[in-house]
């Protein structure tokens, strides 16, 4: 009996330990691998999910063989925090006002426009809130709120979530909350998961076009609203001041703004979707 008990207890403890260990979401150690310098690029989950990095990172590493790039994909808010704590060397994010504040607070040297893509409002084909026929983006959001159609928010303080809150504000609708509005869901997760949830719940969500196109075969969602001026999404690049690999950050900064880097961005998307996903606009 005692032996069985001891065995059982050890099993329990072993399993509770297994349960407690969580996979590390990110690991900010940047050890040089061989004679290469590892450069940490903090960016957003939506950029990661779009597949753009699968094009530009190998191209950068081919042009600059002295560096390897580690991408840390989080929300814009967290990416900026990683910059503040110098856990990242260079940032590629999309929340212009926050980026400018980041630089003016001395955390980065310079912010430059890199490219833009656009947001689209996606929803079920049946479009229960009549978003397609709304006169404007503001009217579209109003009709979603009025009709209490399911809407899935990122809810994670990401650039996309911030954009969504600005759109509610512009529509003159107090930002809904899951507590007060049963139709408003908040996933607290990345764009890919949020799109999946919207698809399952037959709801609307705001997404960047690239992530939506890369996933649309797996989703029962269509674009119900696009092209409104409010839906442009500008990306900026910033070298983190005083980062461990600040020089490497600067190399990446210069490369992505060069005509070569910009051309790769322009071409991305044609092969797979027949349209440009990110429009380069570095000056």
């Amino acid at each position, binding site marked *: *009996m*005692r*032996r*069985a*008990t001891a*065995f*059982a*207890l050890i*099993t*329990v*403890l072993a*399993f*509770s330990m*297994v*349960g*407690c260990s*969580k*996979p590390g*979401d990110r690991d900010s150690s940047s050890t040089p691998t061989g004679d290469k310098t590892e450069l940490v690029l903090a960016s957003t989950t939506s950029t990661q999910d779009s597949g753009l990095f699968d094009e530009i990172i190998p191209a950068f590493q081919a042009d600059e063989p002295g560096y390897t790039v580690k991408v840390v994909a*989080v*929300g814009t*808010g*967290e990416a900026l*925090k*990683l910059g503040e704590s110098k856990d990242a060397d260079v940032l590629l994010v999309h929340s212009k006002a926050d980026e400018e504040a980041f630089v003016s607070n001395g955390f980065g040297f310079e912010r430059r426009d890199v490219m833009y893509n656009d947001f689209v409002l996606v929803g079920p084909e049946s479009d229960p809130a009549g978003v397609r026929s709304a006169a404007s983006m503001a009217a579209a959001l109003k009709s979603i709120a009025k009709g209490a159609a399911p809407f899935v928010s990122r*809810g*994670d*303080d990401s650039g996309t979530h911030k954009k969504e809150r600005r759109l509610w504000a512009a529509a003159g609708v107090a930002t809904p909350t*899951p*507590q007060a509005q049963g139709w408003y*869901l*908040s*996933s*607290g*997760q990345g764009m890919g*998961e949020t799109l*999946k*949830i919207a*698809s*399952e*719940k037959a709801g609307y969500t705001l997404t960047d076009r690239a992530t939506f196109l890369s996933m649309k075969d797996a989703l*029962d969602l269509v674009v119900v609203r696009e092209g409104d001026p409010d839906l442009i999404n500008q990306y900026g690049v910033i070298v983190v001041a005083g980062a461990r690999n600040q020089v490497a950050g600067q190399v990446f900064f210069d490369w992505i703004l060069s005509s070569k880097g910009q051309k790769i961005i322009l071409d991305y998307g044609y092969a797979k979707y027949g349209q440009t996903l990110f429009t380069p606009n570095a000056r």
Partner: protein
Amino acid sequence: MQIFADALRDGWTMLSSGAVDVWIIVATSLRVSGVAVAIALVVGLPVGVVLGAGRFIGRRVALVVFNAGMGLPPVFVGLVVAMTLSRRGPLGDLSLLYTTTAMVIAQAVIATPIVAAITAAAVAAVPRELRLQARSLGAPWWRVGLLTLSEARVGLLAAVAGGFGQIISEVGAVQMVGGNLAGDTRVMTTAIVQFTRMGRYGEALALALVLMAIVVFVNVALVSMQTSADRYEGGRR
């Protein structure tokens, strides 16, 4: 260490403010994992008794299968449940993906082999003579089963604690099938992941400590029940 001090302070502020959201998250965790463990017991206990006490061909193979099932990767369970419940999946018409029901299903699947395997180990440790004697005295099969379970009760507590501790700490499957929806399917583990991604370490640490406290409490309760059971047996001898 400043980061921990700051996080502890922020976390304490959140917990002590009595913000309803936090306790909804904790309550959802307890409810989902509690129901899942109850289901795992209903299914796993009889299976464990048969595996532990039964004599049948293929028992060894079955034991290996259930012991291996204890290590069933939760993400695998999450993936299969998500695909099954997805709108395009075989049970898509039920619209269950991203609900607490889906989370209960996934957690029950994870916990059942744990409950069955620990029960089997506990039941196997009960002397066979006891059952033979009971049967020779004319006890029906279900009485023999109950008697065996009562002799193995400490091991059964371990089964409950083991299953519960595993699933309440699990993050992969509940994230995949629950979706971490605020006020609905958000549980402690998925909220910790979210807060960490958002750099809100205070809230993440506070919830992680609540989770630790629950797991420690379950194990302490188990150990104290075990010691009192041992004392009782000692007195009887």
